[in-house]
C-alpha cells in the first residue's frame, strides 16, 4: 500500500546479507526520478534531529552527480508520534534549502555533518 499511495521506495532492513539494501534507491535515481530520502532512517522524537544513517552517503558516493536539496519537515512528529497508528490533523510546514553537492572522496562524517547543519539551518525559530 505504501508503495502504491506514496510511490515509495522501501528499504529492506535485513537485506544487507543478501545484496545492497539501497538497490531500489539506486534504481529510482537511475530512472531519472527524484528521491525523497530520510537520512535518520526512522521517525524522530520531535525535539532533536537524530543521528544520520550512512545510507545517504553510500548513495552519493555512487552517484556524486545527484543534487541534494536539504528539507526540514516541521511538526510532523506531533501528527503521529512513534508508537501510534492514528494521526491527528495538525498543521505542518516544510522548508527547502539550497542545493548541496557531494564532493568526490569526501569522508562520510564530513559529508553527513555538512548535510546535518544544512538541515538544522532550515529549522523554524
Amino acid at each position, binding site marked *: 500500500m505504501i508503495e502504491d499511495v506514496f510511490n515509495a521506495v522501501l528499504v529492506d532492513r535485513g537485506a544487507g546479507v543478501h545484496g545492497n539494501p539501497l538497490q531500489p534507491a539506486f534504481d529510482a535515481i537511475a530512472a531519472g526520478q527524484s528521491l525523497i530520502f530520510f537520512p535518520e532512517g526512522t521517525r524522530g522524537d520531535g525535539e532533536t534531529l537524530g543521528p544520520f544513517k550512512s545510507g545517504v552517503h553510500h548513495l552519493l558516493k555512487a552517484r556524486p552527480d545527484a543534487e541534494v536539496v536539504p528539507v526540514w519537515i516541521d511538526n510532523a512528529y*506531533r501528527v503521529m508520534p512513534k508508537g501510534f497508528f*492514528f494521526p*491527528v*490533523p495538525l498543521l505542518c510546514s516544510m522548508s527547502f534549502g539550497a542545493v548541496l553537492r557531494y564532493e568526490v572522496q569526501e569522508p562520510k562524517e564530513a559529508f553527513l555533518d555538512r548535510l546535518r547543519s544544512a538541515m538544522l539551518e532550515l529549522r523554524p525559530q
Partner: protein
Amino acid sequence: MMNLPHEILLIFAALGGVLLVASGVGFSLRARFAGGPSQAVVDNLNARIRAWWMMIAIAMAATVAGAPAIIGLFGFLSFLAFREFITQTPVRRADHVALFVSFFIAIPVQYGLIGIGWYGLFAIFIPVYAFLSLPILSALMADERKFLQRTAEMQWGLMICAYCLSHVPALLTLDIPGYQGREALLCVFLVLIGQASDVLQYIWGKLFGRRKIAARLSPNKTVEGLIGGVFSATVLGAALWQITPFSPLAASALSLLITVFGFLGGLVMSVIKRDRGIKDWGGLLEGHGGILDRIDSVCFSAPVFFHAVRYFYSVY
C-alpha cells in the same frame, strides 16, 4: 430542504453587490498605488476581497441547503480552527489520544447534539464531559511535564473553537413564537453583524485610524476604527431588524453586544498570538490568515448572543 425565507436570497444578493463594489475599488486602488509604498496594503486588501467571494459563496450554499449543511459547515470550521489552535500549543506525545478524541469525537458529537436538538447535553458536553475526559486521557499516558498547561490549553482551544462557535448553528434550535422556519436568518444576522463589524473596523481604521488601542499587542486596532466600526455595524444591525424577531431598538442593542464581544474576542486572540510569536493562526484564507483569524470575533459573540436571544425571545 426547509422552506427558504426569501430574505436570505436578498441578503446574499446585497452581499454580492457590496463585493462587486469592493472588487471595483480594489481594482482602481491597485492601478493607483502600483509600485508605491502602499502597494503591500492594497495587495492584501485585494487578497482579502477575493477570499470574501469564496467565503460568502460557501456561506450562501450552506444557508440555502438548510440546517444540516449549516451545522456541518460550522462543525468543519471548528475542526479547522482547533487544528490551527493546537498547532500552536505545547501538547506532547502523551496528549495524542486526548487530541484524537477532541478532533474526531468531541467536535462531531457537539454538532450532532445540535442536529438532534438535545440542548441539555449540548450545553454541558464540552464544559463537563470533555473537560473531565481530556486530562484523564492524558494522565493515563503518564507524562507529568507541563501537564496542567497542556491540558488547560487543549480545553481552552476546544471551548473557543468548538463549544463557543457551535452556538451559531445552535440558534437553529431555538423555538421563537412567530419566527418558526426562519431561524437560519438568526445565524445570518449574527455572522453578518460580527463580520461586518470586523470589516468596518478595518476600513474606518485604515481611513481615519490614529490612536492605537494596544499598539504592542495588536497594531491594527485603533480607537477611530473601533468607534466607527462598532457604530456603523450597530446601525446595520438596526436596519436589518426585519429579518429578526427583534424590534429595531432591540436589534441595535443585540448588534452592539455582538460587535463589542467580537472586538474583545479579537483582542484576546491577538494576545495569544503575540505570546506565541505568530502573526496569523494559519494560511488557509489568503490575506486574512487562518480560519481562526477570521472567526475569532464570532467565537466570542456567538454564545452571548445565543443566550440573550434564548432568554428574551424563545420558549423553553
